[in-house]
């Protein structure tokens, strides 16, 4: 008994020593900036104070509550995230289902499908900005040739269309991520289950609803979680494509924070914005992982 304890405690000590470097690193790259932002958000530090921090308590947070531009950007981010992620999920699931079937050249198609995800976002954003360009863009060219429109549409110049454009670009870029994730999930479902279900008398649609969807739910949730967190912090794609315009129609939270800090040099208020966004994201992630563990438990009966 005592010997067992010593082995266990020795193993535990080794474990701690092994993860210590990683912990210290995390403390510096995550812990410190978060704590610093939290601290800074209690100060006013902008051009008005000659960039010197002046303690102002919760002033920044009170200001935020009445800041229409913040809530506007928050709303825009939410719309962007919800629409883009849902579209990506639907398309990604469809692509995953196709890639899960056996057909000639499947591995080639699989590789091709991942390419958009592998390309650098800034380049993709430039490409899409040109695709949607009102004078030289290929979208307008196609629509004009098909006779669907008479004059070129100013995609990135119209508030609603600009939103549509960035969502399309984001969907194009990140659908592969979801489809590869879901494909892995699909491949972990035993084909025996579909055969047993077919013998039980199920149609392919019934098998999809009763077997594929419930058994794929963990992967779907993980994909949603990843994409939600990522999409809520979207910066590069929109920054390059529209820069938050026209007239702030695509100004997401991260763009607003960037402007506050880097353009208006309002460090204290910027930190407060970061803190609130951060907390909201944490909350969303916590809810999602709670749901995930519940679904896992329901699927297998074991936690």
């Amino acid at each position, binding site marked *: 008994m005592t010997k067992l304890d010593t082995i266990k405690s020795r193993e535990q000590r080794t474990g701690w020593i092994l993860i210590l470097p990683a912990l210290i690193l995390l403390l510096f790259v995550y812990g410190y900036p978060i704590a610093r932002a939290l601290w800074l958000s209690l100060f006013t530090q902008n051009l008005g104070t000659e960039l010197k921090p002046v303690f102002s308590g919760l002033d920044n947070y009170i200001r935020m509550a009445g800041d229409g531009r913040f809530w506007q950007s928050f709303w825009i981010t939410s719309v962007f995230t919800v629409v883009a992620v849902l579209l990506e999920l639907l398309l990604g699931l469809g692509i995953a289902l196709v890639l899960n079937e056996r057909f000639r050249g499947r591995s080639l198609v699989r590789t091709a499908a991942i390419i958009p995800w592998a390309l650098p976002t800034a380049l993709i954003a430039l490409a899409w900005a040109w695709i949607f360009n009102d004078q030289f863009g290929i979208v307008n060219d196609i629509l004009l040739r098909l006779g669907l429109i008479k004059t070129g549409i100013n995609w990135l110049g119209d508030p609603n269309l600009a939103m549509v454009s960035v969502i399309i670009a984001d969907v194009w870029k990140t659908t592969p991520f979801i489809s590869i994730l879901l494909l892995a999930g699909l491949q972990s479902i035993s084909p025996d*289950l579909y055969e047993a279900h*077919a*013998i*039980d*008398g*199920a149609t392919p649609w019934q098998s999809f609803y009763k*077997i594929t969807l419930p058994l794929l739910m963990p992967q779907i949730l993980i994909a949603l979680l990843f994409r939600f967190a990522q999409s809520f912090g979207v910066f590069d794609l929109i920054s390059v494509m529209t820069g938050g315009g026209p007239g702030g129609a695509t100004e997401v939270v991260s763009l607003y924070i960037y402007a506050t800090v880097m353009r208006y040099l309002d460090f204290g208020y910027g930190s407060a914005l970061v803190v609130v966004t951060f907390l909201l994201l944490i909350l969303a992630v916590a809810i999602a992982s709670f749901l995930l563990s519940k679904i896992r438990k329901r699927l*297998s009966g074991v936690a």
Partner: protein
Amino acid sequence: MAKLEIKNLNKTYTPKVIPVKNVNLTVEDGEFLTLLGPSGCGKSTILRLIAGLEEPTRGQVLIGEKDVTGVRPGDRNIAMVFQSYALYPHLTVYDNIASGLKLKKTPSQEIKQRVAEAASVLGLEDLMNRKPGQMSGGQRQRVALARALVRRPDVFLLDEPLSNLDALLREKVRAEIKQLFAEQKVPVVYVTHDQTEAMTLSSKVAVLNKGDVQQLDAPERIYNNPANVFVAGFVGSPQMNLLTLLCQGRYAMLGDFRIPIPDMQTPPNSIVLGIRPENVTLAESEDRNTIKGRIFLVENLGMHYLISVRVAGSEKEEIIVRALVPIHQKWSGEEITLALPNESIHWFDVQTGDAIVKSSIASQLV
């Protein structure tokens, strides 16, 4: 109720991969047919063709005189137990068993009653709310059986249902399966590579090799009158001694010893002698067909010793005969005299591998 017939069944993937060549089988109500063969012999493919999970290249599947070759699996009214059990991991035992009935839109009152019935037959009443992940292999296997039983199908198909159980449990479940399906008045097709299962469970066994039926017979006849070398060698443990011997006139030369061969129009140059180790005995004075040899290996099997004997006079081309000797019989020294009783010897043609006994030829075509 529903006779199962398979006519000229063929499944060809590529010209070189033909898992099922030309198979004809009939299983009557209440019959228990086992498809027995080594892996890759096509037995599972035949089962999948019957189930409709694969489409035959040629041939027909008939259930109760009705051609179901092009019918979807769900419309054939069959039930299948998979090797992996294929239980739905996200559903409770109850929902697993009820799945087929629900899909067939059976009234919920009837579903409840039938599921309860099947569950009580298999002793699953206390597990109804469990998920497959929370159960042992034996329990899952019962759920798989219950899911098949509850359907009241026209045909039961079982694909190596015992292969994932440990040895002790396998023996127990084997006995249960035998009792369970004895009460079902429909055809049962059972796939296995385990000859013990085939022997104990079936009313009829089809031994398969390379996509063809080698012998279709009652288990006793498969064991006692193997139709060819393959069946003789595949069925029986320890394996039958199969010795290719040169002939001199009406005798086969087993080392220094002469064994009379059956009457044939033209005596062959060589012949295959088959005798099961349990039929080889320690020779007594009145025995004929005795051979001498040197023991080089003794294996204790508990009830028996399995002794391997190098036959005297076979120095050039070594001939080894294995004998199963009851544990209480003693012998002395390494030199031993064994008797090969005439009535236990099987003779096979060297070229075709077919048995050379008049009586067994008729039984091949049941």
